[in-house]
């Protein structure tokens, strides 16, 4: 055993609180330490993941309490995959935001503290096996999210943050309600335990709890119509944070929702509900995206749409569907941050952050523009990039379940997607530059971060088998609910023995 | 054998016969004579029975018909048209204006004698000549062709300098291409 899953939560939290202290030693440490921590966690996660794949799921109990009562962390092929992905993204974002906009000492301290907490929260959501604990992590994530959204001083970011806060508090309220309902019925908070006892619940309560969960988690997972906060937050937060939201936070939200629907309850019709709500989210978001004139808002709507597609894929419910959903998540987690990262350099010096100001930057920022174009081509699903394989998986999964209408709608919406992405790309390359815009060449670390993402996208595009086996393993794990319960509860038995 | 003088004579004879009976007219409709052409060609006088037929462009025409007074401005065009016609070609001057200026003898911008500027094969007298006279003119020209005397084009080439001098005399700004065939 290389390390314990507990470290994923403990270390970044600890670091986050210690950063002010490090700052007294050497100011640069504020920037360096988070990177080292994330890198360490990434290495840890990868090695743990390898181990998990070989030996099976790791269940870690905290403070020695056995699972039904105590808090436990589950590092399965599924959660491991997500946590590795998140840490990787966190690392990329750290690399990118190192000296982003030459953030001063004081703000940078806050920035990295909040970033670390955001990562902690997200990973915690994924790893935890306790439903109340998950609520706590959601709160951690949300609060750091509020902070990061309002990072820039200004009316707009404050407003966005406030919107997020309103929605976040609604979310927390309903989550708590759901948890209370479950606890009142079953007397347990452990997910595995709930799952094994779910059939004991009264159906009305079960459905009510599910609805509360959907409402609460749906806000984090950005399903329609609960996603109104997202575009504001994405566009007002600093660029890398937009990337973090789309690459990390949303994934955590989706994970929580999926966990509830797949593992906790086996309510009939919930999968169809996922398909329907996912389609609606996808269609409305893409339609809204085409009419945006600010680049980050456009990306935000696009991100929401993609999440809708992920939900659709999960809603298919078959192994292929889950596989497709995971593929889409991974692919989206790679591409959308690339778009956010390169996009935020493209509008670095502009005041409006509107698409118009991207005109003609292709000549002045060749690499950034190229990476943005690559991301755009990848996200609309053009081969030979990773987006194509993700879309292909979703479509085949849908086809195998006979959902032809879904295929048709998804493809039709993809055309809308093409229109707005190519409008932007054309502007970048073929329009005359606006006089007022001063191009900003990215720092070397930012370039490096973006290039890594691009290389992975291209590599997966040419050879998708790089990741497919992991995804298959992960989807297997998610679907195998009995195994999950057994894994956790057997730990409990070991302890009691 | 072909270049034999006698056989050439026969060939000329046949050619002249054909030329005589097939006069394609380019009627340059200046002045009042232009109105005399339609009756000449249509059913009352029917010049077509003589083989006379209208031609649309100088390239196709054999016979240039100057139907009245020529202003200096028109003369320029007429000379151009004449020079564009293909050999053999003939000119008929029509009405007294082409002969001595007629009633426009003292006009500041009409020429008085056409044969100073173009080689006229036949003049038709009158102001205006009636269609009968016109047909008589055609017949006269046919006779000349048969006799081989309708050699205006050859004369023009021969005395080109003299004609040019006269033409340039009345056309001060000579911007025309040279006559070269």
């Amino acid at each position, binding site marked *: 055993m290389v390390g314990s899953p507990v470290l994923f939560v403990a270390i970044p939290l600890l670091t986050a609180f210690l950063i002010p202290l490090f700052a007294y030693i050497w100011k640069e440490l504020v920037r360096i330490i988070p990177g080292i921590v994330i890198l360490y966690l990434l290495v840890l996660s990868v090695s743990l993941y390898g181990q998990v794949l070989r030996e099976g799921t790791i269940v870690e109990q905290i403070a020695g309490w056995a699972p039904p009562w105590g808090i436990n962390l589950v590092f399965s092929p599924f959660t491991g995959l997500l946590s590795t992905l998140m840490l990787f993204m966190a690392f990329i974002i750290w690399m990118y935001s190192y000296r982003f906009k030459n953030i001063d000492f004081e703000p940078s301290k806050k920035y990295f503290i909040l970033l670390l907490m955001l990562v902690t929260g997200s990973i915690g959501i994924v790893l935890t096996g306790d439903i109340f604990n998950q609520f706590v992590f959601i709160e951690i994530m949300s609060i750091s999210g509020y902070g990061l959204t309002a990072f820039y001083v200004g009316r707009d970011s404050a407003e966005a943050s406030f919107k997020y806060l309103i929605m976040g508090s609604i979310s927390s309220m309903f989550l708590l309600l759901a948890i209370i309902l479950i606890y009142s019925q079953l007397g347990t908070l452990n997910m595995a335990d709930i799952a094994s006892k779910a059939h004991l619940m009264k159906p009305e309560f079960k459905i009510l709890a599910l609805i509360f969960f959907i409402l609460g988690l749906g806000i984090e997972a950005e399903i329609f119509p609960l996603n109104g906060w997202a575009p504001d937050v994405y566009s007002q937060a600093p660029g890398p944070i937009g990337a973090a939201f789309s690459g990390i936070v949303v994934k955590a939200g989706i994970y929580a929702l999926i966990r509830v629907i797949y593992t906790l309850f086996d309510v009939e019709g919930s999968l169809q509900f996922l398909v329907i709500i996912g389609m609606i989210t996808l269609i409305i978001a893409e339609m809204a995206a085409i009419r945006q004139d600010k680049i980050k808002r456009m990306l935000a709507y696009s991100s929401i749409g993609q999440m809708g597609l992920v939900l659709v894929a999960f809603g298919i419910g078959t192994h292929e569907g889950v596989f497709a959903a995971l593929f889409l998540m991974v692919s989206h987690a790679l591409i959308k941050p690339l778009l956010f990262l390169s996009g935020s350099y493209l509008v670095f010096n502009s005041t409006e952050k509107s698409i118009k100001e991207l005109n003609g930057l292709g000549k002045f920022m060749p690499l950034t523009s190229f990476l943005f174009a690559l991301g755009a081509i990848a996200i609309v699903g053009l081969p030979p990039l990773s987006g194509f394989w993700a879309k292909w998986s979703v479509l085949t999964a849908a086809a195998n379940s006979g959902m032809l209408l879904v295929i048709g709608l998804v493809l039709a919406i993809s055309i809308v997607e093409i229109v707005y992405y190519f409008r932007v790309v054309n502007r970048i390359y073929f329009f005359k530059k606006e006089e007022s815009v001063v191009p900003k060449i990215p720092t070397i670390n930012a370039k490096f971060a973006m290039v890594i993402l691009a290389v992975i996208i291209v590599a997966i595009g040419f050879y998708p088998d790089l990741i497919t086996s992991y995804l298959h393993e992960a989807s297997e794990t998610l679907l195998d609910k009995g195994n999950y319960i057994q894994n956790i509860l057997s730990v409990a038995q070991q302890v009691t023995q | 054998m072909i270049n034999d003088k006698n056989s050439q004579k026969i060939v000329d004879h*046949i*050619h002249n*016969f*054909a*030329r005589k*009976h*097939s006069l*394609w007219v380019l009627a340059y409709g200046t002045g009042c004579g232009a109105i005399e052409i339609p009756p000449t060609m*249509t*059913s009352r006088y*029917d010049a*077509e*029975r003589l*083989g006379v*037929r*209208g031609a*649309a*462009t100088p*390239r*196709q*025409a*054999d016979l240039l018909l100057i139907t009245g007074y020529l202003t200096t401005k028109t003369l320029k065009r007429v000379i151009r048209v004449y020079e564009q016609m*293909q*050999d*053999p070609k003939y000119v008929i001057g029509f009405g007294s204006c082409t002969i001595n200026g007629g009633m426009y003898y003292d006009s500041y911008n009409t020429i008085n004698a056409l044969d100073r500027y173009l080689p006229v094969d036949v003049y038709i007298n009158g102001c205006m000549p009636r269609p009968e006279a016109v047909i008589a003119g055609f017949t006269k020209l046919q006779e000349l062709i048969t006799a081989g005397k309708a050699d205006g084009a050859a004369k023009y080439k021969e005395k080109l300098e003299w004609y040019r001098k006269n033409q340039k005399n009345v056309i001060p700004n000579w911007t025309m291409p040279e006559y070269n*065939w």
Partner: protein
Amino acid sequence: MESLLYSILGVLVSLILAFTVGMTYMGLSRKITARIQNRIGPPFYQNFIDAMKLYSKSTGIHHGVMHHLGPAFIMVTSVMSLMIIPILNDSAFFTNMNFHGDLIFLLYIMTFGPLGMALGAGQTGNPNSAIGVTRGLSQMVGFEIPWVMAIIALMIRYDTSSIVDIMNIQADAGRWIMFSSPFTFIAALLAMLGMFRYSPFDIVGAPTELASGPMSENGGKYLFTMMSSSSIFAFAKLTLYVNLFMGGADNLLVLIIKTFALYMVPLLYGTVSPRYRTEQAVRYFWGWPSFFGLLAILYAVFF
């Protein structure tokens, strides 16, 4: 070997025949027009005299290679069409170089000439020529529609695309296609009005409007070649019509009678008609003639 010799001889003879007959028809047409207009008119051999004169005229100039090639293009078309069309029924050498000639091939070889002439006319640089060419091509698009409909109707009806076969079928049945497929004949006949370019479809030459259009820069030998090729072509077309619709001809006299009778149609129609404008002409062909063509096809399919 002998048959080849015969056919080459046949081609030469039929060329001379076509030239003579075509020229005479043209001359006669002038005479007839004159009589209708209450004139005496030129003698019927007038066109031979004109041709002779044109041949004797000097041809001093050309406007470039394509101008020079233009008349040759037209001549090739006329001679090729004549070569493919059999002149007489079951004749040893008057079948010409007919290789069970394909009607579609004929359709296309007949367009070779106008395009060649159009190129020639184009290079003269005379705007009138170009206008004439555009009119001619437009009109061609017009009359080709009923014409091709008629031909397709024939091909459907008799399951062949060979002129000789069609002639034999008529001989066997003892009935002219003109009577057995009246719609086909009407469509083809109306298309023929456009093909001969007499009034009201003489928009190409239109001497008073366009100064004889595509021919305006051609004199002397060029005009001679054009004139003789149009005579040959006229004869070829008439023979084709006779072959297709009037049962062909057993000897030359019958052929001349039939072709002359057919020739009267566009000629007489022309003498009493004013000139159409281009779009009117084009629309005319897409109106009733095409309707008859459609009827012909339907008739051929269903009966």
